[in-house]
């Protein structure tokens, strides 16, 4: 199984570079991150011991870029007819699903690593809270994993990569905005328990905790649950669409 996952991972990861998508996404990611950090995040005006200016915008940036990574993973297979070739090889569906997901998540890791010079730059100028920054990076990585899994799942539903991109951005936006207070205000939930339960299901609630550098088991479980659930749906979709 691990051999098969590795094979699919290598194929897809290399494909990001062969098609130059990886360079394009990396360029846009670095530009948007730096623009948001220095211009919108007022990097030089606030104390950035925990790189707050940088992490504050990460979810929004990743939400726009990750669907661009995942959009073609399954949609292209259907569009080109390669799905018949892939699914008639002696590979387990689970391995193919995980391999494709890991390739996108691996590229997210690369994006985050490429932003690390900002950490170095900050550390040279002020005293940074390195543990806090490291946990925030870990949080970003976890969040990007959930986003990749959702993106892969949406891609499996579509034949068109563009539709897959737009649908993924829409779905991720919906998952994230469920957190906003207006939901609680609009549908007045009965009692505190319901509010707390709904809050614990919120992307934004967990994201705020993670990106502030405080990591909890509930945050990890939350994002891993989204990831596993989306991958499970992805696998079911592949089998269902196969007929």
């Amino acid at each position: 199984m691990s051999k098969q996952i590795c094979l699919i991972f290598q194929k897809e990861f290399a494909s990001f570079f062969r098609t130059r998508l990886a360079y394009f996404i990396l360029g846009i990611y670095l530009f948007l991150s730096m623009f948001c950090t220095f211009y919108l995040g007022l990097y030089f005006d606030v104390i950035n011991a925990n790189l707050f200016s940088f992490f504050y915008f990460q979810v929004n940036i990743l939400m726009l870029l990750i669907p661009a990574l995942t959009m073609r993973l399954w949609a292209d297979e259907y569009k080109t007819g390669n799905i018949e070739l892939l699914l008639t090889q002696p590979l387990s569906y689970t391995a193919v699903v995980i391999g494709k997901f890991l390739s996108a998540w691996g590229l997210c890791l690369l994006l985050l690593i490429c932003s690390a010079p900002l950490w170095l730059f900050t550390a040279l100028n002020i005293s940074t809270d390195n543990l806090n920054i490291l946990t925030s990076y870990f949080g970003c990585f976890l969040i990007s994993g959930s986003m990749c899994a959702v993106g892969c799942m949406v891609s499996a539903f579509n034949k068109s990569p563009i539709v897959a991109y737009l649908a993924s951005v829409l779905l991720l936006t919906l998952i994230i905005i469920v957190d906003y207070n207006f939901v609680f205000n609009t549908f007045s939930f009965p009692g505190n328990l319901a509010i707390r339960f709904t809050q614990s299901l919120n992307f934004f609630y967990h994201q705020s905790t993670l990106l502030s550098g405080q990591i909890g088991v509930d945050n990890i479980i939350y994002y891993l649950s989204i990831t596993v659930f989306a991958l499970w749906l992805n696998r079911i979709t592949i089998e269902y669409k196969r007929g």
Partner: protein
Amino acid sequence: MITVKKLGKNFGPLKALDNINFTIAAGEIVTLLGPNGAGKSTLMRLLSGYLEPTAGQIEIFGKTYTSNRRQILSQIGYVPENAPLYGEMTVFEFLKFMSAARNLSAKQIAPQISELSDQFELSEVLNQKCETLSKGFKRRVAIAGVLTSSPRILILDEPTEGLDPNQKYITRQFFKDYAKNNIVIISTHIMEEVTALSSRVILLNKGKLVKDTTAERLSELSPDNNLETAFRRITNKNK
């Protein structure tokens, strides 16, 4: 040995295949013949495990897809109609990927690719991207891809489409040799290919198996002893 029993496939209300029964033994080259929409590609997709039957069952060497999917797939090489390849890969990378997917060890991959590239005259395009290949080369690469693991069953949808006459000849000779110890199932519209290649013809029409015989016997069903006339007579009669 392939055994197909009461096989049926529906796509919603459409009956693509209905009550198909046949057995294919090693050493046979079977041609699936039929007009457009007869169910040839659906039957190939079912045999290759891509689709699941709505009714009946397929046994391959005594095993079914439900319990032994990966084991069966390692014995089958299936090339779909449009001979799909990963366009961004070079031919070498594609063959390497297919070899690894078909469980070849790292040591076996290079000699196998070298042998297949000689067999299908791919040496000159090994470092070329698949998306830049001509239709004929694409088909040869796709066939070479599934042959990396020397499967015991070869299923090919219109395998010689896009090949020049020389390549058609070489490919047909290859299938004949390959079928000596294995099973080769092809689908084609080219009558010349049916007579040149097949030891047996399965004629489908409107999702039903209407004839399971040899090319010679099928030809005898027409007054002029011609396969094409026989094909037209049978398939038009059923319209």
